[in-house]
């Protein structure tokens, strides 16, 4: 059964359709790539699924349950986790405490278990010196911390929004391995990425968004040769 399914999902901002007639399905424990040119609606898609925006039209089903009207915090508790395109660390909390926010509220753990869970995840992601202040962390570490934070909510479905952006090639390799490790924990992953190598290596399927609509869907090898996709990325031949 599909973990998440959308039915004619649409989101308008004023008269502009940021998402239109989106019908997609996340299958259990797959890595689904979400690609498309800038402004195609990839982040909006994540925001609508995570409940930051409510859909204008259409429905979202999570494990068969209609969650279209639920607020973001309820969706998180049900098992939808996400990271952010631009990192948003919580100032005034240490590395460990940032991760703890996820474990405290995602599934409502008590402080002791939440701390244990957060420590375990920091170790899993290779984050050391966990009582550090976040101002002393590198960009890569902050990204890892945000992934740990999202994982700490114990999601069934995790969205990674451009986690490779700004990383050098060694770091990208490391991050690809991490995503594989996360996947092997049985988590379904939706990944938005501009680095096509990452999409090629990681995903089982991809969906291509352009102007808020799904223009292609399937394994990366097929989709990348689809003329509509090439047109969306490169434009029409003159």
């Amino acid at each position: 059964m599909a973990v998440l399914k959308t039915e004619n999902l649409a989101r308008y901002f004023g008269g502009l359709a940021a998402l239109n007639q989106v019908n997609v399905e996340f299958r259990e424990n797959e890595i689904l790539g979400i690609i498309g040119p800038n402004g195609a609606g990839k982040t909006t898609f994540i925001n609508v699924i995570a409940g930051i925006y409510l859909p204008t039209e259409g429905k979202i089903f999570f494990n068969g349950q209609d969650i279209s009207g639920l607020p973001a915090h309820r969706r998180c508790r049900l098992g939808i986790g996400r990271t952010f395109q631009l990192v948003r660390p919580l100032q005034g909390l240490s590395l460990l405490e940032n991760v703890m926010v996820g474990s405290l509220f995602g599934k409502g753990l008590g402080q002791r278990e939440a701390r244990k869970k957060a420590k375990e995840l920091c170790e899993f992601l290779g984050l050391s010196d966990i009582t550090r202040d976040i101002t002393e962390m590198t960009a890569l570490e902050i990204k890892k911390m945000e992934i740990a934070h999202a994982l700490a909510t114990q999601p069934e479905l995790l969205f990674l929004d451009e986690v490779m952006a700004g990383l050098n090639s060694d770091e990208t390799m490391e991050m690809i391995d991490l995503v594989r490790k996360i996947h092997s924990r049985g988590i379904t992953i939706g990944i938005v990425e501009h680095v096509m190598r990452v999409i090629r290596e990681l995903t089982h399927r991809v969906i291509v968004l352009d102007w808020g609509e799904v223009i292609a869907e399937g394994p990366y090898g097929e989709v990348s040769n689809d003329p509509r996709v090439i047109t969306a990325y490169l434009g029409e031949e003159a």
Partner: protein
Amino acid sequence: MRNSRYLLYILILIILVTLPLHTGVYLLNVMDVILIYLALALSWDMLLRSGQISFGMAGLFGVGGYAAALLHLNTGVNPLFSIILGGLAAGVLAWLVGMAVLQLRGMYFAIVTLALAEIFRVIVRNLPDLTGGPEGTILPSAIFAGNSTKTYWLVLTVAVVSVIASEIFRRTRIHFALTSIRNDEVVAKSSGIDVFKYLVFIFVITSAIQGIIGGAYAHIYGFVSPEGSFSIDFTLLPIAMALLGGMHSTWGPVVGAVLLGVASEFLKLYIPYGHLLVYGLIIVIAILFFPQGIVGTLGQRLKKPR
């Protein structure tokens, strides 16, 4: 390390409780004022930890004061109990208006709370049958018949309860929720935090504390009036204290309240009413040169010795 810290707290508490044995009425009266502002400064800071800046303290302080005084006068309940009822009244009122006002953020919230305090004052002023109108209401006697030792103990209790509440909020999941909300509501929501529920909760609790302080104040002076009980001083001075001492902590507002409280006592002797001017100057200097406040700046220095 931890034990020696608790020992220090207990020592300070013993000194504070036994203070009336060593000192006279004047110092106790000064302490009353300092402790009242200390509790107000703390309650303001507790809400600030969620990122919401309130300018409505005087309103809830006044409501608590009027509720306590009028309930005692009209129903004859015990003054101490009426103080708690004053806190309850402020808390319920905060819950009612909070459902609407807490949809707002930042400066919009700040301005509306300022307006609310003024609205409460105007309402109280215009219900002469119930509240005594512009002249206010005088209670037959001050609490404990004006006994300064017992009065001091009452205020000390209120202040200690505020400190304990603040520390509880610093050490439990509430701290994580409020800090997340202050940083980034989208991140907070995405972590499973019910943002609105936490904002209402902290607004009701801090308002109830302000109501209790207002109730105690009304009974200590045996008098409530629109201009006295809703004075803007009860909003501005605690904010100044919390800013000077350091925000987002328990000891910041405490240190700020003690320093400014003592300073204003001295200043009053030399420049009547001019102390407010000096207050303003201190606040400007504090914000310009150590925006994290005394406790925040010291804490940073201790962490990273340079």
